């Protein structure tokens, strides 16, 4: 099969999370990836977009969340870009550590890493953070 690329630009609102998930589900459906993989991608995308809206763009509707979806014969790759100040994923506490288990937040990145095969963050030259996530077929 040949690859496909789709780009989305969405407002920094909470309801963007569901809108992004719906768009990604449609894309992933066309890509022919397994249901289990599609579930993991859905979880990861929701968490990534939530982080972009809440922590990156801080719900500033003048800023967008930009998403690039790529499918290839080997994998589905999703990049989520915000226009925030950037952050260091290495300093996010482990939510499964005993002292953090009953915390009410802090599991989003853990889910992204749990459900995707590759997750990495980069600061773009023009500003903002991009999280790139890859799910192999």
């Amino acid at each position, binding site marked *: 099969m040949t690859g496909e690329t789709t780009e989305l630009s969405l407002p920094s609102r*909470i*309801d963007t*999370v*569901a809108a992004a998930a719906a768009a990604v589900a449609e894309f992933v459906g066309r890509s022919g990836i397994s249901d289990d993989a599609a*579930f993991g991608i859905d*979880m990861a995308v*929701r*968490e990534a977009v*939530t982080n972009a809206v809440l922590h990156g763009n801080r719900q500033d509707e003048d800023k967008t969340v930009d998403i690039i979806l790529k499918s290839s014969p080997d994998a589905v790759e999703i990049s989520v870009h915000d226009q925030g100040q950037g952050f260091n994923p290495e300093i996010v506490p482990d*939510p*499964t550590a005993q002292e953090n*288990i*009953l*915390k*009410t*937040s802090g*599991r*989003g990145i*853990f*889910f992204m890493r*749990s459900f995707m095969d590759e997750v990495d963050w980069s600061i773009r030259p023009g500003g903002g953070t991009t999280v790139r996530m890859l799910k192999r077929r």
Partner: protein
Amino acid sequence: MAELNINERQAGDVTVLDMSGKITIGEGSVALRTAIRRLLEEGKKRILLNLAGVSYIDSSGIGELVSSYTAIGKESGQLKLLNLTQKLRDLLTITKLLTVFDVYESEADALNSFK
């Protein structure tokens, strides 16, 4: 249609919330939080969440379950979970929360456990 529908019923002194839909950031999480706060205000502190109809939950929803658990615990109440879907069970397993929550597959067993 609401993202999360919650139907309340009473089984003795246990309040059962039959939930269906999604517990995700925004409406679903808020609906759960609102329901739990209202029950606590009404003095209902023995609460069983029937999650059979919950098709999806995200980290915000998991956080809301934890928040509910601790809020009820602070009032010397009990929150227990019934009928987890396999996906929710998997999420609670990887987050190690399955060891925290009291989880049941039979409503009768769950109700008896409050006694």
